Structures are given as structure tokens and as C-alpha cells.
């Protein structure tokens, strides 16, 4: 998942970038509204975290320009102002959520996860596809109730596929979402990780959760939701 962070306070911005990267996000960061605008339009972004009090171009103007340019990914607003009129204004012009400063990083990441989940059409923090359950809050995966150990990259890959369950995800899309922008793209790496996920999630080849569409990409084929009512 690629996150754009536009925050002018350099130490806060540095910490946020580190925290998000540690959780497997790919992060683009900008110290002002103008650069934020540039990154937001030049790179594929899944979520933008925007501080309202920015130099050059204000947070409000940035959000307005993104929405005007038909960028429809979720936008989370950071603000030191906790007046209701400010919150209402930010959400009215197109932001999806707000977090007031000071905040706990966990809180911010949970909100970011929730927005990404919603953007993928999931209402709950637990993503369930057949026997696979992915909990975005604890970042854990269970297979038929049993904990499955995944590396951070495997987890992000599975999360991406499950968020887009039923859709075809091309290798380029996946690489862009999971790697840094300057990473030398090698599609074989994705293939290797898909192979590992299949072994961990379907050791007996009973469910065949991830389908390979030759030349087009991969698809999570298990239907959204549990197989039977719990």
C-alpha cells in the first residue's frame, strides 16, 4: 500500500514515515502542499495523510485540488485545530477522516487501515475470505481459526489481494503498491512470494485461494465473507 504523507513538521514527518514503513507501507512524503500536490498527481497513491496547516498550498487547497483532479483515494486529515467548524470543512471538501494532534501512532495507523479497507469495499476490520481471516488491527492471519505466521511482506501482499478480492491485480499494480518507487522491479519476486503464500495458506491445495491469470496478474478467488454463518 502506498501512502502519501504531507506534513511540514520535519520531526513528526520523519517519525510517521518510519512508523508506516515499519508496518510494510510504502511511503511518499512531502514537506509542503506544493510538493504534496506534485507527488499526489505523479505517483499512484492508495491513501493520503494531509496536515491542514501546510506552507505554500494549504491542506484544504491540496485536498480540493486532488478531488478536483478526480483522485478518489481516501484522504486522512491531520490537524492541530480541534474546532468543529474546521473538521466539518475538511470533510465537506472531500477528506474522509480526521485525527487531531497530538495523536498516538497506533490510532493513526488504525484509521489509515480502516480507510484502506473501506476503499476496498470492506466494512469490518477483519477481512474474511472463506477460511482465511486477516485482522488489520492486530495484523494477524488465521486459517480456519489457526494462526498463520507470515513475514511483513507476505502479510502486505495478502492484505492487498484480499482488499481487492475478486479483482485482477497486475504484477505492476502489486509492485507499485508494495515497493518503494525506486525499487528495481522484478516480477519474479512477486511470483516467489505468491508461491510462498499459497504454500502457507493452502498446504493441501484444497481451496486454491490465489488464481494466476497468465499475462494479467493474480486474483483472490475466495468469496468475501465466511463460508458459513458464525
Amino acid at each position: 500500500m502506498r501512502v502519501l504523507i504531507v506534513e511540514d513538521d520535519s520531526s513528526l514527518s520523519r517519525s510517521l514515515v518510519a512508523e508506516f514503513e515499519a508496518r510494510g507501507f510504502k511511503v511518499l512524503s512531502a514537506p509542503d502542499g506544493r510538493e504534496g500536490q506534485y507527488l499526489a498527481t505523479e505517483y499512484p497513491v492508495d491513501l493520503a495523510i494531509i496536515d491542514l496547516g501546510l506552507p505554500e498550498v494549504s491542506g484544504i487547497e491540496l485536498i480540493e485540488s486532488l478531488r478536483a483532479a478526480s483522485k478518489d483515494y481516501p484522504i486522512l486529515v491531520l490537524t492541530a485545530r480541534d474546532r468543529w467548524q474546521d473538521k466539518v470543512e475538511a470533510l465537506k471538501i472531500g477528506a474522509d477522516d480526521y485525527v487531531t494532534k497530538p495523536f498516538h501512532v497506533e490510532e493513526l495507523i488504525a484509521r489509515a487501515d480502516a480507510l484502506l479497507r473501506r476503499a476496498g469495499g470492506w466494512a469490518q476490520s477483519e477481512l474474511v475470505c472463506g477460511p482465511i481471516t486477516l485482522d488489520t488491527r492486530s495484523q494477524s492471519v488465521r486459517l480456519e481459526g489457526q494462526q498463520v505466521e507470515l513475514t511483513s511482506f507476505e502479510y502486505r501482499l495478502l492484505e492487498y489481494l484480499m482488499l481487492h478480492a475478486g479483482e485482477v491485480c497486475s504484477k505492476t499494480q502489486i509492485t507499485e503498491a508494495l515497493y518503494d518507487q525506486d525499487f528495481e522491479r522484478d516480477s519474479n519476486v512477486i511470483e516467489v512470494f505468491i508461491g510462498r503464500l499459497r504454500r502457507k495458506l493452502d498446504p493441501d491445495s484444497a481451496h486454491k485461494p490465489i488464481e494466476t491469470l497468465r499475462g494479467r496478474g493474480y486474483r483472490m478467488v475466495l468469496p468475501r465473507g465466511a463460508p458459513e454463518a458464525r
Partner: protein
Amino acid sequence: MSLQSLRARVLLWVSVALIVLFAITIVGLAVIFQRSSELALRDALQVQLLGLIAAAEESEDGELSLPDDPGLDLSLTVPESGVYGVIWDADGVPIWRSASWVGREWFVTQWPIPGERIYLTVDEEGLLELEALLMGIRWDFHDGSSLPYTFGIALAREPYLAREAAFRRNLIGWFAVVTVTMLIVLTIVLRYALKPLRRLVHEVGEIETGRRQVVTERLPSELTGLAHNLNFLIDSERRRSVRYRNTLDDLAHSLKTPLASIRVLLTDRGVDDEAKMRALDREVSRMDQRIGYQLRRARATGGTGLGLAPVALGPIVEDIVGTLDKVYRDKQVSCELDIEAGARYQGDPGDLNEILGNLIENAYKYCRKRVLVEVKSSVERVEIVIHDDGPGLPEDAEEAVIERGARADESIPGEGIGLAVVAETAELYQGSVRLGTSPLGGTAVGVILPRRGYRLKK
């Protein structure tokens, strides 16, 4: 008396108005008087001329003449009386002159044809100015012949001019007297009428020096509004400055304890880093909460500004609900609005946003699925009730949240801050907050905001 003074302004403009008005009146009256005096002069000329014509008769030698005692106006017989008569024959030779006509020639330049009348002014250097009437007459003699004659009457203008001048002088004199009298009366009236204003100024001065708390509101009806608003401003200003001072005191006080904890923590060798981090985070949260609470309290204006327009509550509620629907999308809250059409309240938009935002957000946070926002409006007050179907508040919540919130030093649980701020903001509008159980099963929070000039019944 400078022009900054109301009295000076009124007197100046009334004087200007009176002078202009009287000047127009004087000119008008003088013109009318002059016209009528001119008409009177012409009438007098006519009468004299007709008298002269009537007195003329044919003499025994068949010529036109006046008898020895023609029975004419006496002034024609007195020299230099100011009334003169002449009769000329067809050649312009005077055949008769009145006895009053002494030492003066009348050079006629334009002769009337028989039957014609000519009015003219005879103005010769060094002599009396005359107003004259010439009339041409064709006289029929007994022998059947007839000859043209010209009859002339002249009257001195001087008495008429003198009368006009006297009239104008009188007129100006009287009007001057009236003007001065009116201005004197006006000065006295203004002195009396402006007395309450002077008293008001005096009282405001006393308030400034601390010798008085409020302005007396027993004033003429034009000033009671002003006095009332002044008292309102003074009162809210006083309350605001008290509130700022208290907020700063409270803020300083409530920050110093966590700061002290942090300082002790930093030098405490008996605590491991993990525990220190946790403690530090706890103290930072405490400070954040207190700063947030105190600043939100201080920000509430209580609608002290006098120029506040009534704010429509419907759109504010809709905006807030729209915002919360986005933020709490996962929860799929069903929020119903029951807002009286056109409900308005004369308060600060920021305050109303805080009251409604905090209450509706609490409801979204604690509800299971349903929230109901009711706004009722009457002449005396606006009542806002927010219902939810959540677990409800514990019994002592009202005391815990609202009462304790008013005392800054106590720590308030996170969810209580919003409610405490709402309660304090409502109080600034002389309003109140009540907690109860909602028919939906959860909490019902009601805020009553009385309108200006109305107080809540305790």
C-alpha cells in the same frame, strides 16, 4: 461648543434652516407687497385721471379748458404736493397745468393715440421720481368738430417706496425676533432633553472608575435599548475577563502536575525505560487532555458580541451529521433529524458548532445503531436533545461530568470533556444541560438555550 456636541449640531442646523426659511418668506412677502403697492399707485393714477377728464369742459370760445374752480383733488392745487396734472393739445402744447406743478417741465417722448393709456416712470436728475399715466382723448365739441388731447397725471413714487422699505424693515425685524426666540427655546429644550444622555455618560464614567457596576436602565424609551446593551456588554466583558483569568490559572495549575511527574520520571533511576515510556505517554495524554479542555472552554464566547446574526441550526446539524457519517462509516449509524423548520439561535456560530458537534459525536460514539437529533424552537428558547440507543450513562454521570467539568483541576475522562465543554458553553448563554434516559434506550442529552432577554426558570 464644538460640532462634536449634539446640542451644537441641532442649534446650527435649526438656525440655518430658520434663516433660509425666513429669507425665502421675507423675499416673497416683499415682492407681494411691492406688487400690491404698484397696483394701488396705478389705481390712484386712474382715479386722478378720470377726475381730471370729468372736470374738463368746452369753454365759451369753443376750446377745451378747466373751469376756475374745477372741484379737483386738493393736492393738485398745492404746489409740490406730489400729485400733478397736465393737459396737452394735439401739438403737444400744454393747455392746462395743475397748480402743484411748479418749476418743472414734463417732456413727453411718446404720445398716446386717443383711447390709449400709457404708464411710465418719470425720473429726472435731481427731481422727484414720478409714476405717470398718459391718456389720449378725442374731444367732441358742440359744433360737431373734434380734436385730440392728451391728459396726464403724475404721482410722486417716494411715499410708496418709503412704505415698502418700512414694510421690509418690519418684516426682517420680526423674523429676527422669532428666530432668536426659537433658538433660545430650543436651547432650553435640548438642555432638558439631553439630560438623560449626560447622566448615561456620567454613569459610564463611574463604571470606568469602578464606582458603579451597571448603568441605570430607567431612561427615556429611546435610550433603554442602549443602556440594556451597554449593561449586557459590560457584564459579558466582566465575565469573559474572569473566565480568561480562571482559564489561565487552571491551565497553569493543571499542566504543572504532569510536568512535575515528567521531571521526576526523567531522573528516576529505579524505573526501566519501558516503564518510563509508558509513564511519559500517560503524562503527555493528561497534558493534552487538559490543554484541550481548557482551550475549548476559553474559546467559547457565550455570544458576547452584539452584532450576532441569528444562526440557522438545521444546516449546522446536517454538516456535523454528514461529517460523522463519514468518520463512523463502519458503524452504519442511522441518524434521524427532527429539527423545527427555520430554527435559529442568536449565538456565536463557533459555540453552536461546538455544542452540537460534541453532543452528536458522543451519540455516534456510544450508540449501537441509532441516533436522534431533536431541535425545538420557541419564543423564549431553543431546546436541543440528542438521543442514542447505546448503553446509557451511569447514575452519577451528571454530577461526574457536568459538575466536575466546571472545576478544572479534576481529571475528566476523555468522553466527559466534550460534555463538560458543552455544559460550560451553555452556561455562558444562561442555558443548561440535562442528562437522562432516551426512549431509544440509551442516553438523552438535552441543552436548553434561552433567547436573549429570557431566563430559564430554575
